[in-house]
């Protein structure tokens, strides 16, 4: 009874030769893991870079749009003021001409 048990333990603890190509498979798996990790990192960096580019481009576009809107508003305001100034000047000159012609 005791002998059987000892035998079982000896069998369980006995050194077994690895299966053929075990080392190659392990090394292959390690390389694959490393390659996958590098690919994953590359993907992560690419995503971060793409997000940054999109954020910067979006911000630049938004800035340009708001600058354009501000410039348009200033231009329209300046045009309205120019028209007002010319209207007053023209009317005054017409009235002066009218007076001079009427003399």
């Amino acid at each position, binding site marked *: 009874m005791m002998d059987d048990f000892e035998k079982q333990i000896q069998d369980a603890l006995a050194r077994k030769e690895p299966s053929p190509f075990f080392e190659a498979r392990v090394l292959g798996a390690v390389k694959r893991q490393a390659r996958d990790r590098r690919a994953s990192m590359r993907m992560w960096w690419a995503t971060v870079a793409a997000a940054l580019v999109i954020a910067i481009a979006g911000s630049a576009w938004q800035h340009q749009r708001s600058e354009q809107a501000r410039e348009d508003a200033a231009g329209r305001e*300046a045009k309205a003021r120019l028209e007002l100034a010319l209207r007053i000047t023209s009317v*005054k000159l017409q009235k002066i001409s009218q007076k001079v012609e009427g003399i």
Partner: protein
Amino acid sequence: MKFAIPVLLGVLPLAAQDIKMPANLDRLEAKASEVVNVQLDGALIQLASRFLSDKDPDEANVKRLVGGLKGIYVKSFEFEERDQYNKSDVEDLRAQLRGPAWARIVGASSKKKGENSEVYLKTEAGQITGLAIIVTDPKELTIVNIVGSIRPEDIRDLGGHMGIPKIDIGPDKKDKKGKEDDK
């Protein structure tokens, strides 16, 4: 020092003016029922002209007209009551326009109505480089100063375009009246 830049920016448009508006005029704003104060320096005129269409003949005409301008300054006050402004303020302006470069080309006044209209031109080396108009009556004071190459008749002739009213002037009015009389 903090205030240096705003003060400088505030003064810059005025620096381009040919004539210095009397400081007292600003106080008239409180008394006036209608106030127009337009200050356009060269940069603002250029900005405004970018918004004038080349395809619209009226706007294209204005664009050409303002192309040589360095400043347009208009102050106009209308009052409910008579004699709200000091005659000395107007005299200050006239004194500035007595310089050698300026010449009064038109002066029309009516003692009965108390109206006075004057047009001054500034010339340098045979070229018109400025225009000033002073119109006063008991209830109105209008001062216009245009800096740059401009002919008064070009601005006058804008009447009937760009929403600027056209006022019947002398001969046309007389002709019209004559024709009406003939009927």
